[in-house]
């Protein structure tokens, strides 16, 4: 597997970013929704700390991913009706935007509640402003609903990928699969 993308394949680095971010953001989203299952306050503190650290990791990976995308380029788009190409581009743009906005909204939520922000017990990051109790519930709602919006967009993204793979039998999903082999007749 080549590290760089070419005209037909996504490169190893682009694939790694895609799948690692996908696993981290979905896993961390589900984890975030489970916070109230903690059996005691200290466990919740530790769970939240882990959730925040994973979220910051997603944010850092997304910034690196965007920085890598320009020099790396991308495989050429496969032939499809205009509306499908437009839908795919919009979906991808939304996914990039949400993968950045969800961690940032969590950072903002953490800031207005006045909590420390520590990355895996290694170092602390500053707040994105001042503590503001009036924004506590609103910022939490933004953080959570952005995740539900991501889930909704993902239904389209995953549905489209499966549609291409199963019904069209083309390379749209294959070229992003970790060890996917392209079909040469497509």
């Amino acid at each position: 597997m080549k590290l760089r993308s070419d005209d037909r394949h996504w490169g190893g680095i682009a694939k790694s970013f895609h799948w690692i971010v996908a696993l981290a953001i979905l896993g961390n989203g589900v984890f975030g929704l489970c916070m109230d299952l903690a059996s005691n306050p200290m466990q919740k503190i530790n769970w939240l700390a882990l959730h925040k650290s994973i979220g910051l990791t997603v944010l850092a990976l997304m910034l690196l991913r965007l920085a890598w995308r320009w020099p790396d380029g991308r495989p050429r788009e496969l032939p499809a009706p205009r509306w499908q190409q437009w839908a795919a581009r919009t979906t991808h743009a939304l996914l990039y935007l949400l993968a950045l906005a969800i961690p940032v909204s969590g950072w903002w939520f953490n800031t207005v509640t006045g909590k420390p922000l520590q990355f895996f017990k290694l170092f602390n990051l500053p707040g994105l402003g001042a503590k503001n109790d009036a924004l506590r519930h609103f910022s939490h709602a933004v953080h959570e609903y952005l995740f539900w919006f991501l889930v909704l967009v993902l239904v389209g993204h995953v549905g489209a990928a499966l549609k291409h793979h199963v019904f069209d039998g083309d390379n749209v999903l294959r070229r992003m699969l970790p060890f996917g082999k392209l079909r040469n007749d497509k």
Partner: protein
Amino acid sequence: MKKIHTLCAGLLLALALPGATLATDYTVQPASTLGFTGNFQGASFDGSFKQWHAAISYDPAQLAQSKFDVTVATASVAVNDKDQQGALPGKDFFDVEQYPSAHFVSTGFRNVGGKVVADGRLTLRGVTKPVSLAVDFKSQGKNATLDVDGSLKRLDFGVGGGDYADTSVIGADVKVHAHLVLLAK
């Protein structure tokens, strides 16, 4: 002969008197504060006690006669964070129902390189341990200020034990600082 005896006794008494002079008693003025600085998830946070009483008897030249006696109402603890404010009075931290007050009493004062250190015993959450505090005293006439600083190991006193004992989340050391505005009685 009797006169000489009386004279000698008088002289001895005069020599002994400065040593017997008491340190000045002070009343603590409302501008005084008693606070602490802890560490949570790598960030320091400040807290204070709103109700406490200190009996201060102090004279830098009469350290042997000086004394601090401080009683703190643990339920008056105040911090900025809502969750911490909820947790600190509880059983796992100060357990204010069981231990409504903390008490520090000095046992002696030392001069360490020109700085005064107050040694004493702190009783907190039912545990009594020796504690030493750095003393910075300034006086002008009847007015004085007294700044006291020390550091405690919270787990020595069982503050935040059990689930909260993890010092990688809640720091082991807690700094204590008091700023007293004093008026001589």
